[in-house]
Structures are given as structure tokens and as C-alpha cells.
């Protein structure tokens, strides 16, 4: 078995440890004997490279870098990504990418920046005086997340068996994101701000695509999400249920618990 991972704009949208997500998915697949190829998809990359991928990842960016990637993403990459997401290809959109796949982003100065609307959400920046939402964050994955996957009972990882649903991370965003009716949140915030600091929810799920404000390395300390993405990728690619052998995640969960104990 093998997986092709498309890493969108690794030279532009990789702000603060985003590579951790790629490393986590790659290692956790390889430890189970699945070959992984990571393809860097950036401005000059032909779209067929993206089309032939089994899992999509796109990370955070600074304003300048996001602007550079913006047009290429909207005109060339996002139409293909939309088809892929619709067909069940799993994706992870973190931080700036989470905002970028929405319907629009309203900066505190200037006009709305249109997005492809792969996710039914919009983001607003409430001004340079508005507080940035920064800090360690803890959330509880909603039961609807497991419903969103085609075969929740096939999730055989250690995390699933022990019914772990807590995710931890760090958030740092000025924009506030609001979900439309076609989109379900990923998790309920226990500590921190999440999508907008108002409604108590964090992230979004559409088919097998996940968006989150947990920036940078979301997956290493939340292996259940990493495994969920790997499993959805294999199932969509091979068209059958493929149980993943459990891994020893003792260290992963000790790191997670250490964060929980600190806040």
C-alpha cells in the first residue's frame, strides 16, 4: 500500500512547525508498512501532481506569503481541491489555510478577499486593536466527527479503543471564523478560544476534510486525528475498509497530558 501526500505551498504556507503534521502522518503510515511520498505543490507545480494525491495538507502563512499564494490557489489549485474533497479525499487545513478554503476573508482594512468556498465558512478580522487569540488550547472532539467518517467502527487505533477524544494545541490568530449550515464544527473548546472566541467551537469538518485553528503541529500530540486522516485516505484510495494496526502511543499521550497539566 502507498499514499501520496500533497503538501500545498510548503515554501509559503508553513509558518510555525506545520511540517510536524506531514512528519506525523508520514511516520505513522510508514510504521505500518505503508509507503509515503510527499509532494510539494507550490506556485509552479502542475495540477496533475495535486490530482493524483490521496491526502491534502495546507498550513499557516504570514499575510505577505498568503497573498503570494492567493491567486494561484484560487485560480489553479482550489477547483481541483474542491473536486477531491467532494470525492472523499481527506484534507487538513490549518490556521491560514483553514481561513483560505472558506467563502471569504474580511481584513480589517480593505475589501473582502474571496475564497473558493470549499468550506462553508467566512472569516472576519475585527481590527488591529482587536485582541489576537493566542495561547494553549484544549478541545473535545464532537461525536458528529465520528459520524462524518464513513466507517467509524473501523477505526481500530489505540486512541479510538480507549475512547480518547481530547485534542490539544496552540492557537494564534487575529481572524474570527464563522461556520455556515453545511459545516459541522470539529470540537468543543474546553480551554482557549477556537473559531471565534464566542460560540465555544473549534475547527470544522466537511466529508473527510478537517479545518483547525490549532496551528503548526496539530497531529503529533493528537495521533487519533493523524490516524483518522490516514485511514480515510486509504479507504478512499483502495475502496475498502482497511483497519490500521495500533501503535504504541504512550509518548504521544504523555505529551498531551503534560499540556493538560500545565493549563
Amino acid at each position: 500500500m502507498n499514499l501520496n501526500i500533497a503538501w500545498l505551498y510548503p515554501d509559503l504556507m508553513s509558518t510555525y512547525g506545520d511540517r510536524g503534521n506531514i512528519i506525523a502522518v508520514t511516520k505513522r503510515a510508514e510504521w505500518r508498512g505503508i509507503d509515503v511520498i510527499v509532494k510539494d505543490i507550490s506556485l509552479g507545480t502542475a495540477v496533475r501532481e495535486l490530482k493524483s494525491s490521496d491526502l491534502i495538507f495546507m498550513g499557516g502563512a504570514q499575510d505577505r506569503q498568503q497573498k503570494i499564494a492567493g491567486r494561484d490557489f484560487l485560480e489553479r489549485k482550489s477547483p481541483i481541491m474542491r473536486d477531491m474533497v467532494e470525492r472523499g479525499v481527506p484534507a487538513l487545513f490549518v490556521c491560514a489555510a483553514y481561513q483560505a478554503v472558506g467563502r471569504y476573508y474580511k481584513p480589517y482594512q480593505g475589501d473582502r478577499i474571496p475564497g473558493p468556498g470549499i468550506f462553508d465558512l467566512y472569516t472576519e478580522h475585527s481590527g488591529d486593536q482587536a485582541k489576537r487569540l493566542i495561547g494553549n488550547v484544549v478541545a473535545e472532539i464532537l461525536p458528529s466527527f465520528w459520524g462524518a467518517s464513513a466507517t467509524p467502527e473501523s477505526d481500530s487505533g489505540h486512541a479510538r479503543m480507549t475512547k480518547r477524544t481530547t485534542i490539544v494545541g496552540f492557537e494564534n490568530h487575529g481572524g474570527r471564523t464563522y461556520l455556515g449550515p453545511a459545516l459541522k464544527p470539529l470540537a468543543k473548546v474546553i480551554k482557549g478560544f477556537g473559531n471565534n472566541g464566542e460560540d465555544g467551537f473549534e475547527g470544522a469538518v466537511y466529508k473527510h476534510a478537517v479545518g483547525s485553528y490549532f496551528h503548526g503541529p496539530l497531529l503529533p500530540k493528537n495521533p487519533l486525528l493523524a490516524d483518522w486522516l490516514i485511514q480515510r485516505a486509504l479507504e478512499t484510495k483502495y475502496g475498502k475498509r482497511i483497519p490500521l494496526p495500533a501503535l504504541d502511543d504512550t509518548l504521544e499521550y504523555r505529551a498531551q497530558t503534560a499540556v493538560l497539566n500545565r493549563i
Partner: protein
Amino acid sequence: MNIPISVIVILNNLVSRLSRFLNLGAGATWPGELALYAKPDILNDFTSDLRKGVIIVAGTNGKTTTSLMIKKILEDNGERIVHNASGANLLNGIVSACIKSASRTGRIDADWGVFEVDENSLPLLLPFMHGRQVNIVFLNLFRDQLDRYGEVDIIAEKWEKALKIRSPGDGKRGRQCADIQLIANADDPLIVSIAQKSALPTVFFGIDSPSFFLKKAEHATDSAYCPRCGRKLFYQGVYFSHLGVWSCPHCGFARPPVQASRLRSPLPGLYNLYNTRAAGCVGKLVGCTDVSIHRSLAGFTPAFGRQEEFVKDGKKIKLFLSKNPAGFNASLRTVIELKATAVLLVLNDRIPDGRDVSWIWDVDFETVPPGVQAVVSGDRVYDLALRMKYSGMTEYHREPELPRAIESALDRVRPGETLYVLPTYSAMLEVRKILTGKHIL
């Protein structure tokens, strides 16, 4: 409020002594904080006492080492210096340094102020430089503590703005101009862009040695796209992170020629060569000869925690402060070149370190050769251990208790060999305290 400056100085020296006496900290910033409260423009008085001017060192990495090198070069040249040591690089730290060296009447008897300044504090400091000769060293801009500093581009924007109001011909009322000279890193495209936009006189330093080019670019790159036109930069070669010999094939923006220099770094690591070249440029600007600069640097002893050396049980211990991905990668590369057999990595997430430890995933631990043993410790020991696990390193050991981690790491080093310690800022202070036998406050 109009308090005579002499009263402030006397009161503050008292506070400083009291604070040390009561064990409230080293007293490095308290006096300044208090003085700024009593007299917000107190720096005007101090800088106007300086006979020749001010040298400001700014940038993400290398401020402390570079400013210490400049201090050494100038002092060896017979100049009297006021300097904010030990990284107290906010306004309060700079004011404290001035108070400490002021006479009872509140006057400073010195030729130059040599101040390292925090990225965010540079714009706050410049307005106090009225009418003075100011040499500003721009070392580099890397990602550093996004939770505290924001993005690299935001810092660049702040600096550009700060320089603009100080430019000649823009001397609005109350903003008298300083005579600003820039000393800027030509190998950092964003720094060059800031310098050129300011239209201020600039001396560029850099490295012209293709043999130092990296074979494969590291991941933690901030500025591989043109700061002017936004298109991809061409690199003839990369020294580390986004520093290298670059040009933009689209708009023609390119690395400017650098001041010729054969100065060698007194410390290992390519990043110290940049610090050395920057300090050398400043030395030349203020009239030192090549020979005297060379001689000064040959006798340079490293700053606090920056390749600082200790000996314990016949084994050497070297501290390499490593607080962001670019710095950590540079340290890692240097200790690998020095043939390290064991390293101790310490990750804390306190305010001076940044609360966010995501950046460890941008550090290329995958480059550590097999056989090198790593001990990991710190507040976020499990995050670091996890990073080790996913980097494929097999020889790593975790020890949350720092004194035991140091012992354990030392056990893995043979007599005559060196243990390399790569700590974040607060971790570096802790390691130092353990090694020097002083208690942690």
C-alpha cells in the same frame, strides 16, 4: 513632573541595591522601569551626554554576541562605553544600564552607548536619539516567538516606519533628526529591503564564501520570496535559513556588494561569522584599524550562555543558547561539525522562551548523525521527546529533572570530550545556575 535627574539616579541606585539585597532579582531592569515612570524622556538626557553617539544592535539572533564584540573592539581602542549587558534589551534595561554608569549628578562619562535592543523596542528607542550620531546594526530577521513578536513581516514594517520618521528631510516638530548610519546584513533579503527603503547611508556586511553554502536548504525559511515583487528569489547558494547569495530574476532586486572583510570569527558557527563581520564594520566606521579589530576579536570571550564554557568532573560543557528554529538549526549544525557525541536539549515555555513550542518541528533533528546521544529535558520535555521519536533518532533519553538530566548527559561523555547543551532562554539560565552552583531564585 520635573524631578532632577540626579535625584532619580540616586534613588534608583538605592532601589537597585535594595532589590539585590532583598533577592528580588538581579536588579537589571527595575531601576530603568522606575526612572521611565518618573521621567519618560530620561533617555534624552543620557544620550546627549554620550560624546560620540550610540550604536544599536537589532535582529532576531546574535544581538548579545555582536554588541559584546563591538564593546570589546571600542574599549580596546580606548573608548569609554555604556552597555546593556545580559540581554536586558527593552527600554527599561537600556535606561538601567545608563543609570548604573551615571555619576551622582546623573551625568554619563562615556564616548559611546552600545545597546542591543529587542525587535519591538527599536521603534521606541529611536525617538530619544535626537541630534546624535546613531549607528544601527541590522543582523537578521528570523521567525521567533510568533506569540510574542508576531510575524517577521510585521517587525520589518515597524522598523521601516521607525526609520522613516528619523530620515533626513522629515524632521517634524518634536522629532529632531538623528544622524543615522546603517550596518546591514546583505545576505538577508528582508534586511536589505528595509535598509534600501530607508534611503539612509548603509554599509553592507555578508559572507562571500561559496564553500560554506548548504548542500540542502533547511526547512525553516522565512523569506525565500522577493520582499519587493513577491516572486521567488533565486539563490546562488544558502548559508543557512534564508541567508545567502540571492537575487530576484523578476524585478532585479539583488544582494548588494558587501564590505570586503577577511575577519575570522573567534567562535565556531557560521552565525558567529556574521556577528564578527557586523562588529568589524562598526569598528571600521568609528575609526579602528583592521589590525586592532583583529586583535580585539582574537581575545574575545563569549557572552553569557552563548558558547559559554564550563568544566565539570574533567569534562567540558558548552552552552549554545538556541531559542528559535534558525538559531537551533545553526547550533545543531555547529555541534555536529564539532563532532559532538552527546547533546542535552532543554525546552522551556516560559514568557522569555515563548509559550508556543510548535517551532521544534521546524528544527532539522533529522540531520543529527546516528550514534550521537541526546538527553532531553525542560518544562516541555515530552514535546521534545516526541520530536526525537518522529525524527528517527534512536539514542534519546528523557529526564524531566534538569539537574539529573545534566548528570545523565555528562555520563554519556568521556573525559576530555565536550557535552553540548542547547537550551531555550530560561532553560539556559537554569542550566547556568546549576553548573555554577548558585540556587535558582
